[in-house]
């Protein structure tokens, strides 16, 4: 059968090839996600990829899945609606630091509150790649960009601390060069019950704010004995001045949207027919 044989080889689209610049960090993430789908033996037709707009937003084009490439910043609420009605699908949401933290920044806390059972992957290149080099919410203070020719005058966000404060049940950070870590984190995140957030540092080589070389220097895995059920310690590592820690910052098991909705339906005793409802209005 076509579907299965394909699943074994690759989940990537056969007709659409990536248009990223050679060397772009996003290639690595594409490979890691493909590998993860393979490992999880998902059926391609049960994968839904919802992406934002940006270089990173092109992920939805590159898989042989049900994919939706919507508007800038709205991937998460779109995916929430999809997953709410189709809990049977594996829903992956992907976008950039601008898409996710700037225009779409208001949606994360609310997806977290619902604990909708999907994985949100943010690819941070510390810049707006697609629109050619403007500041993003993670561009460092005083760095020069096309929209901040005299230096950025906004502090960069601390996304991990924010996700922790949103009480997201699964939060991890890794880099697009670390295939092993990406694969293991993605696998765990996708299997996590509820909302999971995978934050991947994926350098832009064309508008290079945090180049591979520099990233390599500051990145450090969370310590071996790190307890990822301890939120306070997660905050501490998220706020490290010295290093950008990678690994699973936080993990918590709690009821997800689908379960909570189920309770609602059970409570409401689903046996009413439309006509019974209408007669209540007599």
């Amino acid at each position, binding site marked *: 059968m076509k579907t299965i044989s394909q699943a074994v080889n690759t989940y990537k689209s056969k007709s659409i090839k990536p248009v990223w610049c050679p060397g772009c960090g996003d290639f690595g993430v594409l490979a890691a996600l493909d590998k993860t789908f393979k490992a999880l033996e998902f059926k391609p037709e049960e994968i839904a990829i919802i992406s934002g707009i940006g270089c990173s937003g092109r992920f*939805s084009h590159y898989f042989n899945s049900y994919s939706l490439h919507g508007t800038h910043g709205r991937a998460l609420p779109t995916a929430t609606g999809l*997953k709410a009605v189709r809990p049977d699908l594996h829903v992956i949401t992907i976008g950039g630091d601008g898409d996710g933290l700037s225009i779409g920044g208001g949606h994360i806390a609310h997806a977290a509150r619902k604990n909708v059972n999907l994985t949100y992957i943010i690819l941070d290149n510390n810049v707006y790649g697609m629109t050619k080099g403007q500041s993003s919410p993670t561009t460092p203070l005083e760095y020069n960009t096309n929209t901040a020719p005299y230096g950025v005058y906004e502090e960069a966000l601390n996304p991990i601390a924010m996700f922790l404060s949103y009480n997201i049940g699964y939060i991890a950070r890794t880099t697009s060069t670390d295939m092993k870590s990406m694969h293991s984190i993605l696998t765990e995140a996708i299997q996590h019950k509820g909302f999971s957030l995978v934050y991947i540092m994926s350098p832009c080589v064309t508008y290079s704010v945090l180049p591979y070389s520099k990233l390599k220097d500051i990145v450090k895995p969370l310590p071996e004995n790190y307890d990822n059920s301890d939120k306070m310690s997660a905050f501490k590592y998220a706020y490290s001045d010295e290093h950008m820690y990678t690994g699973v910052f936080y993990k918590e098991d709690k009821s997800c949207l689908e379960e909570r909705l189920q309770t609602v339906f059970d409570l409401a005793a689903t046996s*009413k027919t439309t006509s019974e409802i209408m007669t209540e209005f007599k």
Partner: protein
Amino acid sequence: MGKVSKPKLKSKIDFIIRVAGEGGEGVMSCGELFAKAVARTSYHVFTFITYPTEMKGGYAMTQIRIKDITIYSMGSFVDCLVAFNQEAYDKSSPYLKEGGILIYDPEFTVIDDSKNFINYPIPFSKISVDTIGRPLGKNVVVLGILSHLYGLEHPGLEKLINDRYGSKGEKVVAGNIKALKAGASAAKEMGVTTVMDLSKSEAAAEDYMFISGNQAVALGAIAAGCRFSAGYPLTPSTSIFETLSKYLPLVGGKTIQMEDEIAAISAIIGASFGGEKVITPTSGPGLQLMAEQMSLASMLELPIVIVDVQRGGPSTGLPTKTEQGDMKFAVYGSAGESPRIILAPTGVEDTFYQTIRAFNLAEKYQMPVILLTDQSIGYRKATVKMPNFAKIFMVDKYDRKTKVKIPNAEHIDLVQRQIPTEEELLDYKRYKDTKTGISPVARPGTPEGQYLATGLEHDEYGKTNQEPDNHLKMSKKRFRKLDEVSKAFEKNPIETYGDPNVRIGIMGWGSTEGAIREARYLAELEGVKIRHIHPHTISPLPERQISKFLHRLKHLIIVEENLTGQFAHFIKAKFGVKPIEVHKCEGMPFTADEIYNAIMKVARIADEDNITSS
């Protein structure tokens, strides 16, 4: 006897009660309980509500019209006015008919004795304090007075009180029942005469609902098979989402309150991509936030239904008042060119069926459908015929031909989204450039149906393609669907009334239908005949029908509730006519009277024309 649904010119019973007071005084609940009680009789009931934006204070009123035949408008003048305070009296008494009944609380209201009213000064507030220790029960005291005046039986009212206040505890219910009785006996004691005995009327036939326009949307959506709604509260649309939240789960559906309107429309787009029928209710301010995503849905060719319960604008404007101010935004409200369908229901019952129709059109033509109601329809309550549930038919998912009829109580088609055949799945083109522009859409989970839905211009497979010829081809494909809609609409039931030889015509859209209809009757009583067209589909318009209507007219009146004449502008662009435009921009719906006056003015001009030209 039961209710009669065919419009008749004359009715034996037709009276109007207005309960007016301050926002928060229970004006609404008093009016609603009374209306509900009457709705259980064989009479038709129609209510209109207006209240201030503020939490406390300001003028609020409920107007209730009761008739033995179908009611089309709130009416112009009232037979009985209850005034809770001075402002209510000052603002409402000009609308009380000569010889009408005025009930007021002398503690708060000084009236003008010189008017020819039947005055009943009754201290509701004091009665409430005396009975339950607080003035807050005065609305139920008034209900008691009205029950005496119109002969409503107390067991029924008590049940309604129990339904409404039951959740607040027995004590509250008992207090209210006491207040009800106190009101009724006070009225009796003070010599208030019972003007009619509604209790003598037969019970309503089983097949009527008493619902508001907003409830009609929610129930219509449920009947249409909608199973998902995402929303964000926004006056005056909120009760649609509240009603859906309560009832959708009962049929296995879901509602999610999102963080804003952008998230709400995004969520329904996601759910529609997942294969479900979806709706989001909003009003002008929220609709504006949805513009970008509406355009996306058009480009992705996903069915979504949006309800805009129009309110006074611009900006925050008049949140609790009515206006037909969003038409141009609904029709043109997206950058770039993205097809969509705009429907405008004319009343509560029509809202129910047009909602079902909105889902059918969205699913069939795979584009956004905006249902344009307004505050006056949304808050209005009316008796609506219960649909025949045995006469609901599903259109097959592979069916590409069926001409879907406009739903009515006797026959409801429900469109299922077209899906690809097995053969089509062998080389699946999600955006196949078909003759009708409609392409079958695979439900996620279908093997080999995987596709990319992108807001970028794309080819038939869904792959991005920005070539000149592809953009032209796909733009045409998307708009071809709209031509199909247009063609289908021409075969709709004709929406014109009146003798085709008459040379004066009137045209309106949406909620003005009832007032225009009544105005026509009034004019006919004066011997003035007039034709009337009232399209339910604002975009695309049923052009041939309208052309035919316009063809022999000498004078066209276009009536709408806004300042600039949005609909008139639209009609002028399409048909090159020069109408007489009648606008009202006051946050209040037209009364039949106002339109009648306009008709009579035009009739006089027409007469003069005849004299001059003859």
